[in-house]
């Protein structure tokens, strides 16, 4: 059974205590997208300033648990100043890292049922992220897309706690929405 230290890595707690790019942008001109986790009430608002292909600024508002907040903070740092295409590649790599399927291919961790109780459920389809059908691991997708996950790799441990995956991916889904919205305006 994974311990809490697998989930709450120091870098995650640092982003939680000192969130980067916290705040709001005037919208418009910035794109604003909201994400909700209906299961737990977490809310994330992503503000995106896009100039042509360039993401010139990102701000994050909302509230939620340490995992959702730190993931949003790391995400904002990862995509700020990048191009829209790079941001989409990062989303792709992150989603692959957060997918239970990718984890199984990595051979990481122990059995998903934890205590080995029959019928305890494997969390697949319940806590698992539905956002990807990519069967490659996060590292493979990152390499293929030319993306450096860096700090984001600290969130890898979340996959061992399937119900928390949606906490980690909430801001990324919201970012994807914001990018889609920005594309319709362009």
């Amino acid at each position: 059974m994974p311990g809490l230290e697998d989930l709450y890595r120091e870098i995650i707690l640092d982003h939680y205590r000192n969130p980067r790019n916290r705040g709001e942008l005037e919208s418009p001109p910035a794109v604003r997208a909201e994400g909700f986790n209906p299961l737990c009430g977490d809310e994330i608002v992503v503000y995106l300033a896009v100039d042509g292909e360039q993401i010139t600024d990102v701000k994050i508002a909302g509230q939620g648990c340490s995992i959702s907040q730190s993931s949003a903070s790391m995400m904002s740092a990862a995509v700020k100043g990048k191009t829209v295409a790079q941001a989409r590649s990062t989303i792709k790599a992150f989603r692959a890292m957060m997918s239970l399927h990718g984890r199984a291919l990595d051979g990481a961790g122990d059995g998903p049922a934890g205590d080995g109780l029959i019928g305890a459920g494997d969390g697949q389809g319940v806590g698992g992220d539905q956002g990807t059908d990519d069967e490659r691991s996060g590292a493979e997708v990152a390499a293929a897309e030319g993306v450096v996950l860096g700090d984001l790799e600290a969130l890898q441990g979340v996959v061992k706690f399937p119900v928390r995956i949606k906490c980690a991916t909430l801001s990324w889904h919201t970012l994807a929405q914001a990018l889609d919205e920005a594309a319709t305006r362009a």
Partner: protein
Amino acid sequence: MEVTGQGGAPLDVARIKKDFPILDRRVHGKRLVYLDSAASSQKPLSVLEAMTRYYETTHANVHRGVYQIAQEATELYEQARAKMAAFIGASGPDEVVFTKNATEAVNLVAYSWGRANLGPDDALVTTEIEHHANFVPWLQLRQERGTDVRVLRLQPDGFLDLSHAEELLQGAKLLAVTAASNVLGTLPPVRRLADIAHAAGALVLVDGAQYVPHLPTDVGELGADFLAFTGHKMLGPTGIGGLWARRELLESMPPFLTGGEMIRDVRLDGFLANDVPWKFEAGTPPIAEAVGLAAAVDYLSALGMPAVRAHEEALTSYAMSALHERYGEHLVIHGPLPAHRRAGIVSFAYKDVHAHDMSQVLDQAGICVRAGHHCAKPLMRCLGVGATARASFSVYNDEADVDALVDAIGQADTLFG
């Protein structure tokens, strides 16, 4: 624990724990401490055995077969209805309609009675502390028909603001109110509100999902016209709940779900509905679940509901004191302070640790608490929080369970302190 019930003997929790096989389980190497009965209670062996026995010896569809086991299955199903009716003080079994849960019971009223009686010129009153199950059906009615939905607000002390109750109920046709808040444990003065509602000519729907499992329930004393309840929170199985309503009300209401079982006659150009309560039970009902629910009613009745309430109230009081003594101002308990004015539910916030993180830390200690918005987002907005951690108690919890919770909360400091 020293608890003196008003009716039965004090609960012998050590013995009760033995009746619940799941409590033998270990999680992360720790004893399972289950403090999430407000979400769903655990099941005693007698419930599990009754359902297994039913499937092994008696199963057949109900109200159809002529043969022996079909007749026995029908009898067991109808006995369950009678037991449930007696448990809540109904005048007779035909006032209890089985549904799949309390949510479906409220929806039955909203769709059947609501759509027959509420239009754009009508109003209903509900409260800010309702579970979504007793809120969204009314919002939907407003969306569809323009019915005015008025809301009794929550006061900072965790009680409903009753100062505008008369005014709000003026001209309303329905009051939809919970008998026990699933987040705060608040026990609204249902009878007082029902009297005001009746004086204004409104009917009263009581959401008893968190009340019927924990307090002696008498629909007459509550002043209810409708009562929604669910089996899985009262030691019974999932998949069965019910609606109690006065017989003449049920008779006046059109069917909700239609199909087999609820019918008396069908011709090419129309149908005649069955008598109540079967008129509202379309399709094959949850028969084994009804058998399990009957066993749960027997289990609770043997303990005595006054003794159950006395135990849970004393445990809630103990928990609130212990949490306060250990953590002082670092821990905020949401809702009304005196334990005798709340159900066995304690929602809390520790320092600025998010409820999810708290629940994750407690899980490592084998402790199950709910973290989230508890399907009561209007209430969460009023409290100004996105989520709370909630411990809730049942007959199988004791002071040792509370002590485990109190000890484990502080472990969050190592990560979030």
